[in-house]
């Protein structure tokens, strides 16, 4: 599954990996807002921002082509709307949808691929996101693959009992079987959560995850956030000036 790649990428070492997560989050927000509010000379701006991100990927020692490919996950959805815009007689808008959604996804990917999830979450917490929500998100991510695997096992079991081919005809029976499977999955997940909680209490959980290393916001982090933001803003100003 493709999530493993992200785990591996985020555990690398590079100047970008070493930055404080808050610096990367701040730079990401500036990037996204500058891109989202841009309207004029988008082609030039997009090219500039793409080169900037590619430079970031290079500096983070990530495989450039694989990152570019993965950010393309957003394209099918955007492509549908681009075609709709084209059909409605507004091809420029379609292209801007494609460029903006793709570049935003690439920027988010660059941050997520250079920040391990625990430090990303602690950065978000220090930025003011409610801790409860982040804890829920962390549990979600931790058990996502466990529960998905359970669902895959159930699906395989149903297929092994000929739950697919002939049952296409008997639609209602199959519908009921799928509902039963989901109910069992629900009850099992619920039970698993209770076990997890008891195991955590037994290990002295106090309502917060302890991290091994502390985030510390250094001058270099501030410098990165400032340079990256200024670069994005300067690119936009230059693109708009050139096109004028």
């Amino acid at each position, binding site marked *: 599954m493709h999530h493993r790649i992200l785990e591996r990428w985020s555990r690398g070492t590079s100047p970008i990996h070493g930055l404080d997560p808050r610096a990367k989050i701040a730079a990401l927000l500036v990037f996204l807002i500058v891109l989202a509010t841009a309207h004029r000379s988008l082609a030039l701006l997009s090219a500039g921002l793409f080169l900037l991100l590619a430079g970031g990927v290079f500096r983070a020692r990530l495989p450039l082509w694989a990152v570019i490919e993965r950010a393309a996950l*957003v394209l099918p959805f955007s492509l549908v709307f681009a075609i709709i*815009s084209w059909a409605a007689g507004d091809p420029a*808008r379609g292209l801007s949808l494609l460029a903006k*959604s793709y570049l935003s996804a690439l920027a988010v990917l660059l941050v997520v691929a250079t920040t391990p999830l625990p430090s990303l979450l602690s950065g978000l917490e220090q930025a003011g996101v409610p801790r409860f*929500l982040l804890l829920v998100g962390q549990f979600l991510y931790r058990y996502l693959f466990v*529960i998905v695997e359970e669902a895959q096992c159930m699906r395989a079991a149903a297929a092994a009992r000929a739950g697919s081919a002939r049952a296409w005809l008997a639609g209602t029976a199959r519908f009921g079987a*799928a*509902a039963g499977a989901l109910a069992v999955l629900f009850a099992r997940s619920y039970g698993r959560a209770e076990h997890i909680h008891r195991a955590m209490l037994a290990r002295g959980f106090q309502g917060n995850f302890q991290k091994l290393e502390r985030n510390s916001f250094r001058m270099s982090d501030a410098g990165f956030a400032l340079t990256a933001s200024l670069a994005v803003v300067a690119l936009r100003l230059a693109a708009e000036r050139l096109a004028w």
Partner: protein
Amino acid sequence: MHIPDGFLATPVWAALDALAAPAVGYAARRAQRGFEHARTPLLGVMGAFVFAAQMINFPIGAGTTGHLVGGALLAVTLGPASAAIVMTAILAVQALVFQDGGVLALGANVVNMALVGVLAGYLPYLLWGATRWRRFSIFAAGALSVLVSAVLALSELLISGVPMSRAMIEISLALFAISAVLEGAITLAVLESLERIQPRLVRQPFPRRSPAFGVIAVAAVLLASVGVLFASQAPDTIQQLTHQTAAESSGWFTKSAAGLGGLALIYGACLLLSRVAGRNRSV
């Protein structure tokens, strides 16, 4: 159905982010109340369940399949505040890890699916879950949650100026209706199976409200979402009105004063109406 970045106009995503942030904070506080830490693993694992539920396909006929979206199911089992938190966490993980949905557009997606979708999905169950309309209320919960989220997302795209022809809007509304019926049917079937194996996992609502209140509440939800849709297709009604009145050529001060005056008028009318309605009831 998750809106990526770059689709929404700046006022739209900024307003929805500003709306979503305090609402999620409030929901987080409510979901935690009385449970302390026990709630955290439960909500996380249930979020993972919603992800995994997408692997189990339901046949709709003609060889196509659908899957559970889950907002209403979570609202009925965990309660609306917890369901909103679980859906928010799911949307955030999808935006960050799976590149599905944008980060600036996260507020919009949260409002559509985690806040309004979950509340709209809880409403029918709250109103009729304890009456003999129980099965219908669960079906309506699933259908309404999907329908309202989808219509809101479509309206936001239209307000943001994504060009769509009338035929395109009609086709998507038809698709929304089909997926709403499907979600209702799946939610009902899953909850009925769940009640057979683990009845304690399903919350029981208290019967206390009058049916008239329920009808008005559901009608209000439908009207609001349908109204947003129509408003987004013709967003220049107020502009027309200002064109017709004398305020057209004057500056921003007159315009905003006229707007405030209109708001005050509506507020006064509502106040009067509520006074009259209140007096009738007390008699």
